[in-house]
């Protein structure tokens, strides 16, 4: 019920403005295509992404192998298609996790204030100011490699963002008269937080989260590229780029190019969605004419 309320407002806005907001429409289309690719990968891939049997070694793109093959005779197209799963799972998983944790902590800190708020704010500020990828690398390095570890490590990076957005929204909303009215009517703290404050925070969070997903995809790719990702032979764009890098100087360009382009378009898609949502939430940004 609460979630219905939270999202229905935004979705009706989206539908109405999708025609006008070309950036958002293009971005959403890209994202949906990628999600379809991830889900349908087993049926799209012409070859087994980890199996090497009949294909030639390091063959350039051809009709049989549209993106060529790698040094282990694996079909790159199949690897690139199956490689969508890891980044997309990690990006959505980590953002969901950090959104949950960050929002709850932000609501609590903003609503109750006091020492708890000060301690949380200070910790979050410290984490926020620190380069996110370094934090993620250290976390991944000390834990066992795997999807869960990547999700956890990357989610820690974004918790401060949601904490800050939520907390500042709560501080503004708290002062509004309708909260005073609800308080006067005898509503409990938990009820006020989730029923009256949380829905107001959602708008602010939606715009932030699509940028964060774009960023999380890049962070996942960077971790995989540096060798802190999933263990091979699991297909993963970042790892495949690291693998192909060795052959780049000898002229085998396709090994690095195609996985890279996949990352570019996906994070571009989420970036455009973020821009589009920001334009809708803050119409002044776009309409202002000189």
């Amino acid at each position: 019920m609460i979630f219905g309320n939270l999202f229905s407002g935004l979705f009706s806005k989206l539908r109405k403005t999708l025609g006008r907001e070309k950036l958002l429409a293009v971005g959403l289309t890209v994202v949906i295509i990628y999600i379809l690719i991830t889900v349908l990968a087993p049926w799209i891939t012409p070859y087994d992404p980890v199996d090497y049997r009949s294909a030639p070694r390091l063959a350039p793109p051809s009709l049989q192998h549209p993106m060529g093959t790698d040094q282990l005779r694996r079909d790159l197209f199949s690897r690139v298609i199956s490689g969508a799963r890891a980044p997309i799972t990690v990006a959505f998983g980590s953002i969901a996790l950090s959104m949950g944790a960050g929002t709850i902590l932000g609501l609590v800190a903003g609503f109750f204030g006091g020492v708890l708020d000060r301690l949380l704010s200070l910790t979050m500020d410290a984490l926020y100011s620190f380069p996110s990828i370094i934090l993620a690398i250290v976390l991944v390095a000390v834990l066992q490699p795997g999807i869960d570890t990547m999700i956890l490590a990357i989610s820690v990076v974004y918790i401060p963002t949601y904490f800050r957005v939520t907390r500042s929204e709560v501080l503004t909303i708290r002062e509004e008269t309708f909260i005073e009215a609800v308080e006067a009517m005898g509503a409990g703290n938990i009820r006020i937080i989730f029923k009256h404050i949380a829905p107001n925070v959602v708008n602010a969070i939606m715009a932030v989260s699509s940028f964060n997903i774009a960023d999380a995809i890049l962070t996942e790719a960077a971790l995989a590229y540096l060798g802190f990702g999933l263990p091979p032979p699991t297909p993963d764009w970042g790892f495949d780029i690291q693998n192909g890098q060795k052959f780049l100087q000898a002229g085998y360009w396709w090994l690095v190019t195609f996985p890279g382009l996949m990352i570019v378009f996906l994070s571009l898609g989420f970036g455009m969605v973020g821009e589009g949502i920001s334009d809708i939430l803050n119409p002044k940004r776009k309409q202002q004419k000189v």
Partner: protein
Amino acid sequence: MDSLWQYIVQRVAATIPMLLILIVVVFLILRVIPGDPARAMLGGRNVSAEYIAEVRKEMGLDDPLHQQFIEYIWGLVRGDFGTSFRTDQPVLHELLIRIPATLELAFYGMAIALLLGVSTGAWAAVRSDTYIDHGLRLFHIGAFAVPLFWMGLMFQIIFAVYLGWLPVGNRLEALSMATFDPITRFYTLDALIKGDLGLFVEAIKHLILPALTLGIIQAGLLGRMTRANMLEILDEDYVKTARSKGLKERAVIYKHALRNALIPILTVFGLQFAILIGGAVLTETIYAWPGVARFLITSVNARDFPSIQGAIVMIAIFITTINLIVDIVYAQLDPRVKY
């Protein structure tokens, strides 16, 4: 002037808990989460349980956690960052010889980011809702949608391998590196001090690709901010006043609008610097740049815990210091900030 000093002292005091929290977080991550640093350090080597116990004792891992922490902090205060497992050198020494490399790269990267970001952002705002604006906006979004390491590889392959215009990596050619006697370890600065123009050009050539890779990503973020700020300011009354009193458009844009649009950008400078250092992890790896970030990655791969911890503490000190400076400069520039 007194109140400025008061403000500075106050900001410094506020910085210390922040730094302490970062140190605690890193300390806990490295001590609590992994099974056993001693075993991790010894890797897969077949050693007896007694030997591991001995190493643990030597590393102080058997002491209670709070005691280890106090000892670590006390060490930091005295400038003792511990000893690297890998090289047996003091971690502080390992860091000090690499800091200038990272800072030099960061400096040139930031310069490129500012030039590219501010100019394209301002241009997009002035030509708002035209094709130029759309194109520049696409560049801004695109710049941070491209994985930094991929862009670095592409630059490397195009400009260094195929075209051969620029070197593949490192700070100087191997020969110059061997004979070079550093003064400040900022190589472009050293070359100028020595009056060696050839060396200066060589150092700059080695800087171009890594700095460009780092800078372009930042330029996207800065460009978006500049554009948004400019749009708001171009709508302000004082800009309209400036126009209506007959000032040339150039003067309106550069003297009145852009100047004020840049002040809010200063506030995110600290954050930008953090992103830059994060980007340095990848740039330094791709271009074999012997800096702190690359040292961190090598240490992580070797499970060299004192070095990992030291590198992170050093990066945290960098970033809190930059934030502190930004705060103080901002207070000076914006008369609305009271101190």
